[in-house]
Structure formats: C-alpha cells, structure tokens
C-alpha cells in the first residue's frame, strides 16, 4: 500500500513526486508512456514566464510568480539548463500599447520584478532584429528559458533517489474506491494507495471521471512550432512575444537553452492529447506571424517541426482541489500555460493540499537535493582532457552536431530512470537535437542502448511503445 500514487509524470507529476519525496512516505508515480516528460512537457515554448499574464488574484498568478522563483534555485541544484534572458511583449499599434500597459499593471500586482514599458526605439536598441513596425513593448527581465524535459527528468530522478518510485508504461485504466484507499488498475498491474494525485495533463478530466468526478473538462488545444538551426540561435537574445489574444500568448520568437531558435506556436482546438501532428496551415500561420516581430527569421534553417497540446479547460484558472467526488483524490487539472513556470509551486501546493486532506507528513532526515550531470561540451579544455583520461568513453563523440560523447550517453542510461529509446537519450543528453536530427547518431545511440541494456537491436524503440525501428534482419544479417 502506497501513501500516495501520482497519475502522470510530466512536469506536474514530477514536481509533486519531488516535493513528496522530502517526507517519510511511500510514493509512486504511474506514467502511461515509456518515459517521463513525454506528454505536453516535452513540446511547449519552454519559457519560464515572468508572470504578468494571469489575472491578479488567480492561482495561476500566484503559482506562476512563485514557481519561477523556485525554479531558479532548483535548476541550479539539479543541473537543469536555464537562462534568465528576459522577455518582450511587442505592440504594433496604439491599441496594443494599451494591452502592454494593462500587462504592466497586472505584472506589478502579481509581484513581477523589474517590469518596464519601452518605446519602439528602446526595444530595437536592445534587440536590433525586431521589426521597425514595433511602437513599444513590455520588458520583463525575470523571464527565463529552460529545458522543460530536462527539468522534469531532473525532478523525477531526484524523487527516485529519495525513495519515490516511478513506474513507466503503467497507464491507469480504471480506479476503484475502497474504504480509505484507492485501487488503481494499471497496464503494469494493480496499485493501491491511500491518496491519489491526478497529474494526467490533457487527460486529467478522463482520470477524474474514473472516480466519478466531472467538475471540469479539458479542451485540448494544439500549438505548432519550428525549431531552427543554431545558425539562427542568436537572431534574438530575449523572448519576443506579441500581444496576447483570446487564443493564447501569440507567436513568439526566442532562443532555446540549447542555442537554437524556437518559433511558434499557433492555437487550434483539437480532439485529444495525441493530436500532436503538424499541419501545413498551422505552420504557415506561425511563419507569417513570426516575421511580423522579427522579419529576418530564415526558415531555410528549420531543422524540425513539432506540436504540443495545451490542457486548456472550461475553467478560467488551474484546477487544484480535492475532488468533490472522492475524498483523498487531488486534481491538478487544466494545467495550461504557464504550467511549466508554475510547476515547482504546484508541487508544493499539492503537498499542502494532501496535508489538509489528512496525510501526515514527517520530513526525512536526509534528503538528496543535488544532481550532477556531465555536459562535455561545456567543460574547459583542461577538464575535457582530464575526463577523457579518466574514462575514454568521453573521448568518443557520438552526436557530432551537438558534441555529445559516448560517456554522457552511458551515464544517462545508468541514471535512476532508465531511458529505453533513442528519443529518451535525446531528452537526456541532447544527442540527435542538432541539425542532422539524429540522421548520423541515431544508429549509434541505438547500438549503445542495445549494448548497455543488453537488449537485441530490434527491441530498442525510437520513442513511444510501438515506435519500432527495425523490421527484420537482412539476408546476410540472419
């Protein structure tokens, strides 16, 4: 019997597991996919929003500002790439300037530090690639960019190192309410827990329905992106937003922590969390809107398109509550943007909610709150030399676009949550993130996974269950 079962291990489930692992509790996170961070958490704008967007007084406003404050320290401790580069919200008309002033006021009420309203010329002096049509902007120096999947992996790994369990390929299919506990039927067997945290992202409403709850409905909404080569990575130095509209925060142009340029998203209602395909219309819209802000974006340098699905809901705010349908069942639902920014604070909030539901919390004597990870390309020549001497595997570069060594890949495979696919390695050490998109290193990462996990080549997947790579041996290979 577990004290707490968390359903879903995206950034919200992982942050909750991390916070719970501080206490003497039996905690399990049940994830439907074969890796953590495989839902919305891996496909978004990757911005830690400063916090001027949400309406003052909402949970979103409070948790956003608190979340990004916590993220600063967390990313530092857990070796997550994060850069505080600041953001602009551009105005192209006087009408939009009014929105900029509204955001400025909201931000101040929400407690966002350092906000300023700038003129068009001031903006261009800081960011020369920005359109001459821009008449002014809101500047928020505290906005940051982050590696969202790495953030999630780091939190989940740290939770595991502190005794929590993460079960992969364990989709929760139904839930039985028992006297004082829940019996969860999962694809990987039954799990019984006294408390349940529903962090199932876009599917949180479906999971809530498993205990008879129908207080909210998710309205899945897709956003599509271009990721551009590093050649474009320094086109802008800050996150460049347009004025928000009813559909979201508009199309942004921003550098990524990995040195690329990200351009997107649009906003389009879709049916399910699985609707992450790209569309010609969506991509065309993103292109058209983005060059309005930064006319010189060169789409010939695009290396990948992707899409993520927002967990928009029929409620204006995040849904963070004990289910009215089941005592001890906590919903973390409708976690749309700024969900990533708010995640660390939502984790803390979830623990407090569990406490108020009767869970007794006793701090562990020792809590491991650091995480080390070798990033070869960031080392000094001396440290590189030293590392290769100690372990020759760091002397073999596997991903040439991103300079990722075999040592880093082997290190990632032997961390607490074992990556079993080529994309899981990509999320952990960047191999395959570059301009050739794994065209070169894919087969090599494949071989390393097969060797280290002692699995035959044809058992290694590209990403999710079912994403097999090899079909049959060749005649000679038999």
């Amino acid at each position, binding site marked *: 019997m577990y004290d707490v079962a968390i359903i879903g291990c995206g950034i919200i489930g992982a942050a909750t597991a991390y916070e719970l692992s501080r206490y003497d509790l039996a905690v399990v996170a049940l994830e439907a996919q074969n890796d953590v961070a495989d839902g919305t958490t891996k496909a978004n704008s990757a911005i830690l929003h400063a916090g001027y967007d949400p309406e003052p007084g909402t949970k979103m406003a409070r948790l956003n500002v608190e979340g990004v404050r916590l993220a600063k320290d967390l990313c530092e401790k857990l070796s997550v790439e994060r850069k505080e580069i600041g953001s602009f919200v551009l105005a192209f008309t006087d009408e939009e300037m009014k929105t900029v002033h509204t955001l400025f006021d909201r931000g101040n009420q929400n407690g966002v530090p350092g906000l300023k309203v700038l003129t068009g010329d001031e903006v261009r002096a800081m960011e020369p690639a920005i359109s001459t049509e821009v008449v002014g902007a809101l500047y928020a120096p505290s906005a940051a960019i982050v590696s969202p999947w790495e953030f999630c992996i780091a939190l989940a790994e740290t939770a595991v190192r502190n005794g929590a369990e993460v079960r992969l390929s364990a989709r929760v299919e139904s839930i039985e309410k028992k006297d004082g506990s829940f019996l969860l039927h999962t694809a990987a067997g039954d799990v019984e827990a006294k408390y349940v945290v529903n962090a199932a992202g876009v599917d949180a409403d479906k999971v809530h329905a498993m205990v008879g709850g129908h207080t909210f409905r998710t309205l899945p909404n897709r956003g599509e992106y*271009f*990721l551009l080569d590093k050649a474009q990575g320094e086109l802008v130095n800050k996150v460049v937003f347009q004025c928000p509209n009813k559909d979201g925060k508009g199309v942004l142009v921003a550098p990524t922590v990995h040195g690329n340029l990200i351009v997107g998203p649009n906003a389009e209602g879709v049916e399910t969390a*699985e609707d*992450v*395909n*790209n*569309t*010609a219309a*969506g*991509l065309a819209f993103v292109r058209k809107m983005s060059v309005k802000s930064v006319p010189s974006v060169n*789409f*010939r340098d*695009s*290396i*990948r*398109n*992707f899409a993520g699905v927002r967990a928009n809901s029929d409620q204006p705010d995040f849904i963070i509550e004990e289910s009215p349908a089941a005592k001890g069942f906590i919903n973390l639902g409708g976690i749309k943007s700024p969900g990533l920014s708010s995640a660390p604070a939502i984790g803390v909030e979830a623990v407090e909610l569990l406490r108020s539901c009767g869970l007794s919390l006793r701090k562990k004597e020792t809590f491991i709150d650091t995480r080390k990870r070798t990033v070869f390309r960031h080392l000094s*020549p001396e440290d*590189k*030399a030293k590392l*290769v*001497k100690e372990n*020759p*595997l*760091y*002397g*073999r*570069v596997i991903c*040439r676009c991103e*300079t990722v060594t075999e040592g880093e890949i082997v290190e990632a495979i032997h961390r607490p949550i074992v990556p079993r696919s080529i994309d899981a390695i990509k999320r952990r050490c960047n191999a395959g993130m570059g*301009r*050739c*998109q*794994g*065209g*070169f290193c*894919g*087969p090599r990462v494949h*071989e390393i996974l097969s060797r280290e996990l002692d699995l035959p*080549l*044809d058992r290694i*997947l*590209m*990403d*999710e*269950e*079912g*994403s*097999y*790579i*090899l*079909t*049959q*041996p*060749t*005649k*000679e*290979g*038999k």
Partner: protein
Amino acid sequence: MKYDVIIIGGGPAGLAAACSASENGAKKIVIIERDKELGGILNQCIHNGFGLHYFKEELTGPEYAGRFVEMLRKTDVEVKLDTMVLEVSPDKTVHCINTKEGYQALEGKAVVLSMGCRERTRGAIAIPGDRPAGIFTAGAAQRYVNMEGWMCGKRVVILGSGDIGLIMARRMTLEGAKVLACVELCPYSNGLNRNIVQCLNDYDIPLYLSHTITDIQGKERVEKVVVSKVDENRAPIPGSEIVFDCDTWSSRIWRPASPASSAAATWSTSTTWWTSSPRKACGPEPPPPSTPPARKREAPSWR
C-alpha cells in the same frame, strides 16, 4: 605537435588532399577522421560506378576508398581515426579528442577542411504530419541495412530520386521490402538513367516526378504517406493526393557540414533524401558516384 598540413575529414576529398599535399612536398601531414576507418561516405556506397574517371575502372565505394588508402600507405601521412575535432582556433590549432590519446591540441601551418556534407532531414523541408518512427535519412537506412544487417522497413517510399535513393530502392527490394514509390519534387530525376532503369524499372517501382510528400500519418510508426503532385512553383496541387500504406520512408538531402570553428570553407552540395517507407528528395543531388570526387573538388586550404 606541429604539422605542415592538418586535414580534417578522411573521405574522398581529404584522402585526395593528403595524397596531393604529400606529392607536392609537404612533410608532416595528418588526417583526422571521426570514423573508425577512412573513406567517409564511400564506405556506405556499396554499389559500383566509382573511379570510372580517375582510375578508369568501375569500383564500389569501399574499393574506391581502398585505392586512395593504398596510395596513402606509401606516404608518411599520419592518420588519426575515431578522432573528433572540437574546435579550430584562429591560430590554426586543431583541438581534437579520441579515446586513446585523449584531448590534443595540434598546430598546423595549413588546415584543410574536408568534412563532406550532411543530409538534410525532414525538418529541414517542413513536411506536415505526425512524427512517428520509420523516417530515415538515406545515410541512416544505409547504415542499418549495409552495416548492421538489419532492415528498417517492409513497405517503403523514397523521397528523392538521386542515385543513392535509387540504389537503396533496389537494395531494399532485394532484401524483401516492397518499395512502393520513388517520389521526386523536380520534373526530372537527378539520378543516372542507368540507375533508373536498373534500380526502378527492372523492379516495377514507380517514379513520381513533380511530386512531393505532403503528409505523414501514424502515431508510433509510419502508416501512411500522402504524396501530391506539385505545380511549376513546386506547390502541392490540391486534389492530386495519392496515399501509400507503408511503414518507412526515407529521404536524402545534403547540405555542407560546418566545421567546429567559424572558418568554414565548404563546397555546397546537393540534396536528396529518402525514407524507409516513403522517401523523398529534391534539389541538387549528391555528387554522382561516377565522378572522381576527390580530385575535382580539392579541399580548399585554410589560411
């Protein structure tokens, strides 16, 4: 360590540059190659047709590379295999690593950048649709099939009709795969006529000229690929869609590799691509294998 010439990349261009530097009197020469063997892309090209001009013989890629390696053996050129260049600094110091010698900084009087080119991937061409497994660059597919002994698809569409795409179409067919189509954006194929006849026609593989891939479907693995006809401006024509049920598509599009340093001096190449169920290619093709890649495109030296 001081060198007269440091050559980065041991493919055909680098090999030819080394031979030529040696012939012309350079003393201390080193080739740095990141693979376990010399020859570069030639090692994956197990079809023949190489060397016609240069050696007046038809050789396979590895044989052709072998000839250069033999020539090299007779010289004092040093070769560092399995070695990756991390950076070339402005004073012509080449920083590299390998597992045996660790981290090294080599000083060169001249540095030759002959790193070849890279395939462009699907993202570079912005094809809408899902992003399942089963999409390969020709290079990755070739590696699985020719070097690992594994097939990466049963029903294949190839995007791009350059020679390598054509040859892979035949290779996959001989290995028991069904190649459903070879799709080419241009109104003509970039491949040799001989290859079109011997690799496509002989196996009844249809070549769709002026067509491109407009959608990819399949959540985990490629299930369907939608191919559309394009107009003169290469824009897909609505209503012309053909749907292929396949599990793979492959593409081949080349772009020059960039060196670790900023001082890139590369020649531009061409494009093709294919995927293991579907594949696609377009634009200028990779250098046709029958031309002597080394001699003609001597690597520019870097000062």
